[in-house]
């Protein structure tokens, strides 16, 4: 007998680490997303019962996969008549069907083909971006529909409908369960990287709620980026994205104070940044830049690297950061890049210069509801001692953010500005 708490923790850990693997390996056997999800969920439920009696297996992922696949085969045999009318997912190895009784677990190392199949299916260009992101969070990061809805600020019923519609399209239009051919891969990888980045960003600063960070999304995104990097070691964008995520996540522990207050980059305890993760990211980035030249994600990673290398905020090489944003705006023009460049410029040349650089962005419709524009303006005004205008900008930023930790930070700054007005 194993303790309940211990088993519970082992199952939870296996869920975090291996959910996508178990699901993806089951999808390939049963060739139906809903059925595979059902079987994977049952395998985790059975693990809770069985592991309490027999102990936690040496390879929990392989155990779960075997149980889920066997369950799938049983159900398919029983319902074969009922299911024969439904379209099955198209796989490239249809020989691996329910007839083979071989129990194949995931290999402990090497390429994770099944999970890659699943990510390319979820991010197929024939699905809307919203559907791609929802499916990736649901099927690859293992979040419940309610959790995905909360993370992306959508009503649960609407999110459930979105996911159901997307699954129907995958089987109805026969979106294949397959890693694209070498010829299609460069076109298809872009959407996958954007979705992974979006999942990470949503986890890094949760758009709503009491938690600043959603570990499940952050870890899921990093895991996916690692898997993609294994598949495409020579792709600069993939290596750049993984480096960017690692650099950003390395600061995780220092973004909140002991009492849960937001701590910005200038006041973070850099000695507590994850040095191992920064080292890994630096090596990835160096390699990416040497082999593939600058890409959208590798330049963003390079900006994060400049921050990671600076021993203190005061030592930050703002000329380098501004220069990198100049490269980035050419590779990937966007209002958010312009905003970040203006902020970097403000630190290089002073708050008045920063304020001037932000001015043209105030009319940018894409930034109309973007809290960071108001927050950046407020900060420059604060540094210039223009307290009345700073207070107004902090009020705007407060109205636009839904994250409670960010709201508390902005409210503190607003109070300071109002106090100076006397």
């Amino acid at each position, binding site marked *: 007998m194993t303790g309940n708490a211990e088993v519970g923790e082992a199952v939870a850990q296996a869920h975090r680490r291996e959910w996508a693997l178990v699901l993806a390996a089951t999808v390939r056997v049963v060739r139906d997303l809903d059925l595979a999800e059902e079987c994977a969920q049952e395998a985790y439920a059975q693990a809770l019962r069985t592991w309490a009696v027999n102990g936690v297996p040496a390879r929990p992922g392989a155990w779960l996969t075997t149980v889920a696949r066997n369950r799938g085969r049983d159900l398919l045999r029983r319902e074969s008549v009922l299911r024969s*009318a439904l379209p099955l997912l198209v796989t490239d190895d249809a020989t691996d069907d329910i007839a083979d009784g071989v129990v194949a677990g995931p290999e402990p190392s090497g390429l994770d083909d099944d999970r890659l199949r699943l990510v390319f299916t979820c991010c197929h260009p024939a699905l809307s971006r919203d559907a791609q992101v929802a499916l990736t969070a649901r099927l690859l990061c293992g979040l419940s529909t309610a959790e995905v809805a909360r993370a992306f600020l959508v009503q649960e019923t609407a999110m459930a409908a979105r996911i159901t519609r997307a699954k129907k399209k995958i089987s109805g239009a*026969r979106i294949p369960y*397959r890693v694209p051919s070498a010829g*299609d891969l460069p076109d298809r990888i872009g959407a996958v990287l954007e979705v992974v980045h979006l999942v990470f960003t949503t986890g890094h600063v949760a758009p709503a709620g009491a938690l600043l960070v959603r570990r499940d999304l952050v870890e899921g995104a990093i895991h996916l980026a690692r898997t993609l990097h294994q598949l495409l070691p020579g792709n600069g964008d993939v290596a750049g994205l993984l480096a960017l995520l690692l650099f950003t996540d390395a600061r995780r522990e220092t973004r909140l104070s002991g009492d849960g207050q937001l701590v910005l980059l200038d006041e973070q305890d850099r000695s507590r940044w994850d040095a191992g993760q920064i080292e890994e990211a630096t090596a990835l980035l160096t390699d990416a830049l040497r082999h593939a030249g600058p890409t959208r994600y590798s330049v963003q990673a390079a900006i994060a690297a400049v921050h990671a290398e600076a021993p203190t905020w005061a030592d930050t090489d703002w000329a380098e950061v501004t220069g990198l944003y100049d490269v980035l705006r050419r590779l990937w023009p966007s209002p958010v890049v312009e905003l970040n460049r203006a902020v970097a410029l403000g630190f290089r040349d002073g708050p008045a210069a920063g304020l001037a650089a932000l001015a043209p962005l105030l009319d940018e419709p894409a930034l109309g509801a973007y809290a960071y524009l108001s927050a950046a303006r407020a900060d420059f005004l604060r540094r210039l001692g223009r307290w009345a205008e700073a207070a107004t900008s902090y009020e705007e930023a407060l109205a636009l953010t839904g994250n409670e930790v960010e709201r508390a930070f902005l409210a503190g700054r607003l109070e300071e500005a109002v106090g100076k007005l006397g």
Partner: protein
Amino acid sequence: MAKYLFLIYGDEQAWEAESVQERKDKQAGHGAFAAAAGDAIVGGHELLPAATATSLRGSGAGRPTPTDGPFLETKEVLGGYYLVEAPDLDAAIALAERLPELSAAHGGVEVRPIRAAD
């Protein structure tokens, strides 16, 4: 295998304004498409202009009254279609990409799966 309907949409005025050479090129393009698709093509036709369409709408009671014109009065109209067979959506897209209308600035193709017979 699955069946897909390729619905070819475009700006009718732009189609009608095409020169003789452009029409010949397009015809050759459809010839090349048919050659590449081979047995995958189950059927397909070019349609007469939308102005020749007659619409009938069910009212739930009595005979429907025919009215002049297509269902939707839009700039982009359905100009033709193919019914093709393909193993999956990627294969269908790869086939549809060969249609000559997609090299015109105003042309578009909708790929719709056919519901499998029960």
